[in-house]
């Protein structure tokens, strides 16, 4: 069953369409990745699903019911983990979760049980009496999640839940997302980290300029890119590299530098490796390794949008 159905969704701010005639469905039980660069329209779409913004046009259905007409039903069953920490620093972890869960109508022992459950789930059960101002960044992020799940929502929207935290906390959160999904929650997940999306999402949509430009499973998305390849060349130093000359080589689509690695996207059918290597030697590069990569999500994203996810 579809948990979310979006049809012809548009949101305009003045003349600017942040979301432009978007249509999308999320199935119950999936972890749906929402990929897009800054300003692509992800957050606006999420805000409309969470009833924070009203669409200019189009509709959103939650479990078959129009959100605009059944806002209370939708809100009771949706939890949101905002990108920015949304917690009260002057209230303990327990009080934070209790306050937000209390807004969903829970009181007394039921409320207490749900709060304890949520805090234990994110690994803060033993820190429930502490103030968030004494927490690390990762612990605050986990509390941010606990505040969104105590009312046991069917759909959890997670907007960049791992921004700015250490690898240990990131891993904890990713495992938590998978566990929530195993428990029956549908997850709508946005991230700048492609590897996170590749690891946990069962289906992915790529958003650009307010439109969905591709969606499907990882394999389906990668299959879109049949006419390009990525060549990774490790060098001792990229100092002196002339990127413009590389881009002039026949078949080269784009050139990116990541520390000592040069990533070149090229048309698949053109054999231009020799030309690339010779140009690098002319630029004085000391080549250490050359590898041809099959398309990954990053390649797909770059090919479809023409920009990096972190742009």
């Amino acid at each position: 069953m579809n948990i979310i159905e979006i049809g012809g969704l548009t949101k305009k701010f003045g003349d600017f369409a942040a979301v432009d005639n978007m249509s999308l469905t999320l199935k119950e039980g999936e972890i749906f990745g929402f990929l897009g660069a800054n300003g692509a329209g992800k957050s606006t779409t999420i805000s409309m699903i969470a009833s924070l913004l009203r669409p200019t046009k189009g509709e959103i259905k939650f479990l078959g019911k129009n959100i605009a007409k059944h806002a209370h039903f939708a809100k009771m069953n949706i939890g949101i983990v905002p990108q920015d920490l949304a917690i009260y620093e002057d209230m303990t972890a327990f009080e934070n979760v209790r306050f937000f869960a209390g807004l969903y109508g829970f009181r007394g022992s039921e409320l207490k049980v749900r709060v304890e459950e949520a805090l234990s789930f994110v690994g803060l059960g033993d820190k429930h009496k502490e103030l968030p101002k004494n927490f690390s960044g990762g612990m605050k992020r986990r509390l941010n999640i606990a505040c969104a799940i105590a009312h046991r929502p069917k759909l959890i929207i997670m907007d960049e839940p791992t921004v700015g935290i250490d690898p240990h906390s990131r891993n904890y959160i990713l495992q938590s997302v998978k566990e929530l999904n195993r428990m029956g929650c549908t997850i709508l997940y946005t991230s700048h980290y492609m590897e996170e999306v590749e690891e946990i999402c069962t289906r992915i949509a790529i958003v650009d300029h307010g439109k969905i430009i591709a969606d499907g499973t990882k394999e389906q998305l990668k299959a879109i890119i049949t006419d390009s390849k990525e060549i990774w060349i490790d060098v001792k130093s990229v100092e002196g590299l002339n990127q413009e000359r590389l881009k002039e080589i026949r078949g080269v689509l784009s050139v990116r530098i990541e520390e000592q690695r040069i990533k070149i996207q090229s048309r698949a059918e053109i054999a231009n490796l020799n030309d690339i290597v010779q140009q690098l030697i002319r630029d004085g590069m000391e080549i250490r390794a050359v590898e041809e990569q099959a398309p990954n999500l990053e390649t797909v994203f770059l090919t479809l949008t023409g920009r990096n996810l972190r742009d």
Partner: protein
Amino acid sequence: MNTLHIAKKEIVSALRNKSTFLFMLAFPIALMLILGLALSNAFSGSIEIGDIKMAYKIDQASPALASGWESFAKAAEKNGVTIEALPSGEDGKQAVTEAQYAAFADVSDKGIAYYDNSRSTIESNILQGMLTSFADRYNLEAAFASAGASSRNGGSGQAPAQLVKSTSLTADSQPNSMDYYAVAMTTMIALYAAINASALIESERTRHTIVRLSAAPVSKAEIFAGKVLGSTVINAIFIVAVMLISHFAFGANWGDHPGHVLLVLITEVLMAVGFGLAVGMIFRSKASHSFLLIFIQIASFVGGAYFPVNDFGGFIGAVSYYSPLRWNNAGVIETVFGGDTAPALAAAGFNLAGAVVLLAVCTFLIRRRETI
């Protein structure tokens, strides 16, 4: 229920905020103490002055006037004022000029001609007041005597002088400096509720918790009502605490109608909360805090927080009528020291009307927004 849930959270947060305690409790108490002690003389009902001497001369006065004047002179002597007949041949005006006397009165049936020395202002004012009082009383007695003669009816049979009795309307109910500043500081701190209120909605925005509040199944009206209720209750608690401390620690008099006084103060808090919210929603930045600080300071100054407003005249005096502190101070002081509850009810009515208008403005602004 959600309204109470949100209100409870506001109260708990405020009680944990040390700076709120400092500002809402320590600040008014300290000011009350400093101003109450420093300006105690300005509110004192007595002043220490030396002996006052006045010379007089009676020319062509009726027996009644001469007798009345004699009684007046005796009564004045009991109050430390010496009234002496000017020795014959001396010039009264010259004697005053030479500072032998503070003033000279030339008494006759035509009236009292009064001469004073500009170097003895206080003494002269006292004497002038006494003479005016004497003249009023004499005229009243004369009018009684005349009415009695014309009716040929002895009336009560009392002499005219016994028929006239004057009573001071506020003899025993003037606020001393501590009483005054207890009221003034409490009404001022009630107005300061606007500063905390200005951040009620905007702080949720800066903390990003507005996202959670808006995503929860809670209406904008419930969030708004919870915020207003919580803020009003917590400020009312601080107001009551200030009242109790001023009463038990400094002996401030809060009168026999504490319910009416509280009604004025709580409605003032409600109005201040509405004002703060409206300003916060219009400015949507820290500028609202600065604006309110300036506004409240001006309103406090012209509204009588630091000096009684009766001292002001001209432009400032006219402006003072627009300060909420003026009508609230007047409402409380007249209720506490005049024993009349009508001024308190009038002030509370003004406050409630203001609160309704301001909260309506806030509601209008919220309805225009997509999220609260």
